[in-house]
């Protein structure tokens, strides 16, 4: 009796968090089958799986995922790269901070999505508009956290490194950059979250390919199952990006007691 209780407890504990979502899924399936839930509101879960499978087999799914991911990463590279560069600049040089930081702080308070009308006027509705929106959105978290990271590097360490003969690029590479890295990675994780949000909105406005196009197209034809596939894809891609960012933290910040991979959990 007691051995059974001991051996079943960990398995039970692992299952417990899934109890609610699984029963919801079951209830949903049941409601759809019984016709209580119109497929115009929500298709049955099995239909969503079916749609996913069909899209994946035809290759259509991967095409759209590739297009969306390409946009997201290009926007991140442009906006994040600029944010990193300018953050390093304003963090390292007082003159650059005086010249630029006030302007950035003003611009930061404009939500990127508020720019949409202007962006459409400037770039029309093609690729550059989407890239611009994503780039603007991811710029500020990376910029701010890089700036903050550089500024919060322990002055004692810099003084020590100078007195031990480091200067210029060596000082930067061996002391300042690694010291700012935890903060820069926090900015990256913020940016990754924002990146998908902005991309979804940008792709919903207009697109000829991508997950947003897939869902908007399906909406026209009342294919709620495909719409749900699109939503799930965004969720999975967002989660994947977060996992990758966490992996980066574990890899680069292995020295940091706060980020060390935990053996238990």
């Amino acid at each position, binding site marked *: 009796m007691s051995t059974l209780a001991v051996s079943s407890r960990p398995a039970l504990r692992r299952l417990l968090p899934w109890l609610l979502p699984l029963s919801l899924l079951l209830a949903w399936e049941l409601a759809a089958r019984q016709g209580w839930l119109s497929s115009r509101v929500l298709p049955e879960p099995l239909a969503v799986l079916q749609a996913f499978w069909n899209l994946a087999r035809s290759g259509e799914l991967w095409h759209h995922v590739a297009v969306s991911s390409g946009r997201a990463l290009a926007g991140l590279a442009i906006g994040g790269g600029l944010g990193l560069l300018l953050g390093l600049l304003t963090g390292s040089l007082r003159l650059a901070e005086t010249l630029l930081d006030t302007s950035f702080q003003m611009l930061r308070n404009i939500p990127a999505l508020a720019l949409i009308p202007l962006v459409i006027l400037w770039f029309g509705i093609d690729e550059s508009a989407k890239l611009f929106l994503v780039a603007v959105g991811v710029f500020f978290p990376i910029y701010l956290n890089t700036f903050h990271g550089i500024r919060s590097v322990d002055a004692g360490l810099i003084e020590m490194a100078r*007195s*031990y003969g*480091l200067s210029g690029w060596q000082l930067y590479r061996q*002391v300042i950059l*690694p010291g700012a890295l935890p903060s820069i990675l926090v900015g990256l994780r913020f940016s990754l979250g924002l990146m998908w949000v902005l991309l979804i909105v940008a792709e919903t406005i207009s697109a000829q390919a991508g997950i947003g196009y897939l869902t908007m197209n399906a909406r026209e034809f009342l294919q709620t199952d495909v719409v749900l596939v699109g939503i799930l894809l965004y969720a999975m891609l967002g989660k994947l990006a977060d996992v990758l960012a966490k992996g980066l933290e574990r890899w680069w910040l292995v*020295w*940091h007691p706060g980020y060390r991979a935990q053996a238990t959990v």
Partner: protein
Amino acid sequence: MLMMKDIDMLAFGLHREAEPAAVPAAPAPQPSAGLAIEIASLDKSFGERPVLQGIDLKIRPGEFVAIVGRSGCGKSTLLRLLAGLEQGSAGTLALDGQAQTGARREDVRIMFQDSRLLPWKRVLDNIALGLDAEGAAERARAALAQVGLADRAQDWPAVLSGGQRQRVALARALVHRPRLLLLDEPLGALDALTRIEMHALIESLWREQGFTAVLVTHDVAEAVALADRVVLIEDGRIALDEPVPLPRPRQRADTRAAAIEARILQRVLRQPQPADSEAPDSRWPQEPLRLGALRFAV
């Protein structure tokens, strides 16, 4: 766990102490190893506030000098001036006859109160910081072995104890073969057992390598245990320059050391009373309370 470590260190310290004892007791560093220091009427002020006034101090090559004083007396500033981290306001400071202009010197190294190890570099890479690529790893490894931590080369600083971090910092300073080692209260944050062990380690490495050493500390016992001379700074001036003519390696609980320590402490504790340095004995009745209160401040 911690206990084990402390006992380890103690054993290590005794071992290190025993080694130089085999050599004749008189300190015989190579004459060229240490740097000579000559400070003449040196002033330093931060804004309007004078920190050091008219400091005159000569330190022979290879000498071990301890600078003691209350917090804020200017002793750390004097060390930073020696390291070239600050510039004097007036007067001269010469190392081996050359004015210290604030330029970094290859032969001067400083050890800080906090170890200031780079947390993102492994112990060995921390020691190799600023070394030329050629043979850096071997030299760093040798320095690490000197402080008895050869097996910790690949650890992150975050997993070391406070005493181990300071030993790594000592290795990092010594790997450059400095001719002047500046110690800015490097043992202030360590527990008593680790301090004793570090005293023995610093003394033996100093005897071995013959560099000039300047130790800033607020602990008079530590100053007497390590130094050839104890210099007391009060209100930015040198108030006392006391030789410590005791044989090396120094023994713990030496009565002569205790007498010197008592003499210096007495001088420090009398200080708050009016200008005349020979305070009248009529002041003594208040003494027990004052002594307890002041020991902390010193």
